[in-house]
Structure formats: C-alpha cells, structure tokens
C-alpha cells in the first residue's frame, strides 16, 4: 500500500509525504518540502553585516525574532562584542514573547484539533469558543511583548549590534506586567487541558539536543547538550553534517552520523530542573517522565514551556520596571572574524555560522530547527508500525496518525528552506 499526503495542513509552509507500507512495515518514509529556494545564505554574502539580521528576519513570519537575534549573536561572537545586561534581559524577554506567540499558535490552532478529530480549526473554534478566546488572548501577550521591545510584533527593528537602538516605554512594560499576571490563570487552564490529553504511545530512542545554561532554563544562550555530551555551539557544528538529496530543497542534518531531535521536548529533557515553580508543578503532575522518546509529548512539553515563559516574563518585567533601563553604546573594535550564534527558537535550537571581513559578510550558514528535525522525523515515521494498533487502522486513520506525528514536531517548512 502506498501512502501519499499531498499537502500537510496546519504546519508553517508546504510539505508532502510519501511512504510504502509493505506487509505492515512503513518503508521509505519521505517528507518532501514544496517551498521554493530563496537563497538567503547566498544573497547575504557581500552585503553589510548589519543587514544580515534585518534581512534574515524575513526568512519567517512566525519566528522572525529568533532569526534576527541569532544573526546579531553570531556577529557579536565574531567581533567579540558583549552586550550589556539590560540589553540581554530585553532580548530574553523578546524571546519569551516569541515562544509564547509560537507555542500558543501551535498548541491550540495546529495540534488540538487532532486530538478531537476536527479537520478544520473553524470547527474547533465553534466547539470551544471560550477556550479559543483564551488562546487568542495568550498569544496576544506574546505579540505585545515583542512589539513593546522590538518596536513591532513582526520583524523587530530595535535590536542592533551589541544592544538596542531604543529602550521600551516603561509604561508599556507596566501594562504588560499587569496583563501577564491577569492572563496567567488562562495559561494554567490551557496547561490543564494539555496535561489531561491522551498522547499516542510511541518509542524510538534518539539524541535530544538543546542549549543548556548553568543558571537558567536555556533559551537565549548556553552550550549545546546532545545526549550526555556538552559542546560549545561551534564545536557542536563541527560534528553536524548537512546532507541534501537530489530534488530536495532542504539540507537535513545528522549529528555524529545519527538523527537527533530538537525542540520543546529536548529542551525540557535537558533543562527541566531549571523550570519555574508553576511549570515544574505541571510537569510533575503530568505523565511526562524523562527520558521520554515520544515526539507526541513535544506538544505537552510546549504547554509546560508556555507556563514557564509566562512566569519568566513576569520576573523579567518586574526586574526591568524596578531597575534602571540603561543601555550602553557597545564598543566595536573590529568587524572581522567568524562566529556561531545559537538560540532556542520555538521549534528548537537555531544556528547562524557567519564569517565577516571589514563589516562585509563573506560566508553564512543557517541551520534551522526543522532542517535538523526532518531526518529524525522520517526515521520516526519508518518506525510507525510499532505504534500500538497501527496495523489494525484503516488507511484514512493511518494517514491521520502520520499527519498528527508530523504536526507534533511543529515543523516550520518556511524556515527549513531559506
């Protein structure tokens, strides 16, 4: 039996899926990316360094903040610039806004319908008008955080090499703090909903890769943890091999010859001890115990992160409001060098590897979370028949399960082709 899904809906971008099922075994599971190549890594060569984050932000309309900031981080690493603490706090807060925005979108609007068997979100919206309203409100907080700090909710304009062009309006931050606190009960309610869902059983051991940080739940900065090994981002990339098949516009990756998974589940696996108290409570209450090699739990992990992000946003907003927002002009001594920037994007760790000479980009490689996850996702799909009861399902139901697994990874096809 051949399974073919022409368009996988409710993921960002366009992808299709093909596989053969031979005597119950899934063979040759392939995700084909249907987006066009935009050659961002190519068009940025020869351009001024400051244009890199501004143009690269346009890779994706869902997660522009992470592309923008990772671009700056890579350049700062290359030039040996250390942004001041206020700038880092502001960037972290903007990251939290990005995660809140993206997770709430994926959790409620992309994933939930699968658990209730709806084919369209509009059906979901009609069935759960109150919950929909909550989800929209939660997402709106994320947008407003990005807007307050970045100058607008999509494609931030305030970040600059070494810091910020403009500090946020303190009144806006105060308003946001009040609204974050007000929205917190809705976030916990959404968390309850996701801890109560029944996640399909699945098990295939893989390497879970994310940033880690000694003092905090790593989102903005840190070293890379891959299984039991810990690397500097640059060292990690030395062990990552990109490969691309003919007719495919995405470069997939393997780490030391094996597929690996990035994203909320990997982050939680590597960082759960650093979760904020409420998020920690939810994790303990849920049936998610580590290690758990089941990508369906990526959805639950996102809902726990959403709670963490709200708690963290409240902490950082309070810090900014009580402290003094003062940004120092960074000293840029040289505009020549190479550096790797790594950040935890909503869908997993994102790398920018850049080389610049006299302020002009010479070389750039961008490795997105989805590009890293695709090989692992395909390997998971090949094991799909081991899911309890998969062989007893009708073709339609099998297709639904396959789509559900793909969506659990929260792929961003747009980012994977850049």
């Amino acid at each position: 039996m051949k399974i073919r899904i022409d368009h996988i809906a409710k993921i960002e971008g366009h992808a299709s899926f093909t596989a053969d099922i031979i005597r119950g075994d899934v063979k040759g599971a392939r995700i084909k990316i249907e987006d066009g190549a935009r050659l961002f890594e190519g068009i940025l060569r020869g351009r001024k360094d400051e244009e890199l984050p501004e143009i690269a932000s346009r890779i994706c309309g869902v997660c522009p903040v992470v592309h923008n900031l990772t671009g700056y981080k890579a350049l700062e690493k290359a030039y040996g610039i250390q942004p001041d603490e206020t700038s880092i706090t502001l960037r972290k807060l903007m990251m939290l806004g990005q995660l809140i925005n993206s997770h709430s979108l994926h959790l409620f609007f992309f994933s939930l319908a699968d658990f209730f068997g709806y084919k369209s979100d509009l059906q979901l919206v009609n069935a759960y008008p109150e919950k929909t309203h909550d989800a929209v409100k939660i997402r709106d907080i994320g947008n407003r955080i990005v807007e307050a700090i970045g100058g607008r909710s999509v494609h931030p304009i305030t970040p600059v090499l070494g810091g910020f062009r403009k500090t946020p309006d303190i009144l806006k931050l105060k308003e946001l703090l009040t609204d974050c606190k007000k929205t917190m009960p809705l976030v916990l309610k959404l968390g309850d909903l996701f801890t109560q869902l029944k996640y399909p059983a699945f098990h295939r051991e893989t390497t879970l890769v994310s940033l880690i940080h000694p003092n905090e739940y790593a989102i903005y900065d840190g070293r890379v943890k891959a299984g039991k090994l810990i690397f500097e981002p640059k060292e990690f990339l030395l062990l990552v091999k990109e490969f691309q098949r003919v007719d495919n516009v995405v470069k997939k990756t393997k780490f030391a010859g094996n597929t690996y998974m990035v994203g909320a589940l990997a982050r939680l696996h590597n960082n759960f001890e650093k979760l904020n108290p409420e998020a920690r409570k939810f994790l303990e209450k849920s049936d998610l115990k580590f290690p758990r090699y089941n990508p369906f739990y990526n959805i639950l992990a996102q809902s726990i992160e959403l709670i963490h992000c709200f708690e963290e946003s409240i902490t950082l907003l309070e810090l900014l409001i009580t402290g003094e927002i003062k940004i120092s002009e960074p000293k840029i001594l040289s505009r020549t060098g190479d550096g790797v920037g790594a950040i935890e994007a909503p869908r997993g760790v994102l790398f920018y590897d850049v080389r610049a000479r006299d302020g002009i980009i010479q070389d750039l490689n961008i490795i997105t979370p989805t590009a890293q996850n695709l090989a692992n996702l395909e390997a998971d799909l090949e094991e799909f028949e081991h899911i309890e009861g998969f062989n007893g399902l009708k073709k339609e139901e099998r297709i639904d399960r396959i789509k559900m697994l793909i969506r659990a990874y929260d792929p961003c096809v747009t980012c994977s082709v850049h």
Partner: protein
Amino acid sequence: MEFLTKVNIGDFRLAEELPDVKYYDIAIVEGTAITKEQLRRLKIVRKKSKILVALGACACVGGPQEIKDYRGNKNQLMRMIYPNIRGIDNPNVKSVKELVKVDLEIPGCPINKEEFFRIINELIGGKKPIIEQKPVCEECIRKNKMCFLLLGKPCLGSITLAGCGALCPANNFPCDGCRGPRKGINLEAMKKALKYKAHLCEDEIEMIMERFGEKNEYIKASKKI
C-alpha cells in the same frame, strides 16, 4: 475573531485540511511563486477569483529573495548553498502582478494589521479601497530637525509609500522601503541624497534599493524621466 463571523474562509491551509472551494470572492496571495507548482496554483487561484489581492512585500515587489537576480550568476549562488542543484527551481523572482492580474496590493514587511482589515472590510462592503499616495516622511515623527537623511543616515522614507505609521524611524531605524515606492517619485534625487547626505558609493546605494525588490511600476516610471 470578530472578523471570522463576516467571512467564509475558502482555503487556508495553515488552519484546516479541507478540500478547496470552487470559487473565491476575494483571494489573498502572499509571497512569490518560485516553484513551478506554486506558479500553477497561482494561475488556478486567479481563474477562480473575482478579486485577487497581493499581500506583503514579497507579493508586491518581490521581497528580499529577489536580490539574487541582481547578484551575478544565480545558479552559481545556488551551487554555493546546495550540493545537488538538480531539480530545484531557480527562476528570476517575480512579483505577483508580473505573473497574473492583481486587483489590489497591500504592501509592507510586515503588513500593517489595521490597514489590512480596513482594506478587506472595504472590499467586503463593495468599496474600492485606496492607499493614499504619500511618503513615509508625512507620518514620520523625526521630520524636519531630526530627519535621518539630514543626519547622514540612509533613509528611504521620502520615496516610500506611507501607511505604516513610520514605525521604523520612530524606533531609531531608517526607513528601508519595505512598502515599496510611492507614485511620482524622483529616484535620481533620492540617489543623489544618499550619495551626498549619507556618503554612500553607488554600489551601496544599489544594494539599499534592491533590498525589497525593484519590480514596481513607479520605479520604472521614474527611471524613464
């Protein structure tokens, strides 16, 4: 959410997986068609639709991906990125109106949410929406004394179509022209200003101008002058 009660969404694959509908009153097209399949779909959507709206800088002026068309050999560029370039479409990037008839453009990267809803609501109400042809400078809080261009920063506000509320200059960021040029611009004057006020060389000026693509009739009209 309130907006959703006024319309029937025909095909929105980001939110649903139902089959396409037979025709659309209003089709909104984002991005540029790069693959042959995207071009095929664009033509089908055009045939099925009464009104076709191009949304965002990519659809209206080509977007940053169009830069590759100005940077020498575009296949060589592709070879730098992909080990296997066979089977990957690499056409010249075209804005939507170069490929099919476009009834209305909503520019910007990002778009202005308020403008979007105003225009779509006017379309639903049977009106013909208009975006007023004026420069970003008119909305800019920095005009006169604090003008970026006068301070020697490369700002495209004077040739760029307003409607964004001049958010960038308000955030200490010179306008990079994401909404595309307005009607009746004097491109040569802009280039001269960039040369003498911002002290840029010709190559640098070209690079700024090509950031969001040049596929715009106002650029072409200006070039004829």
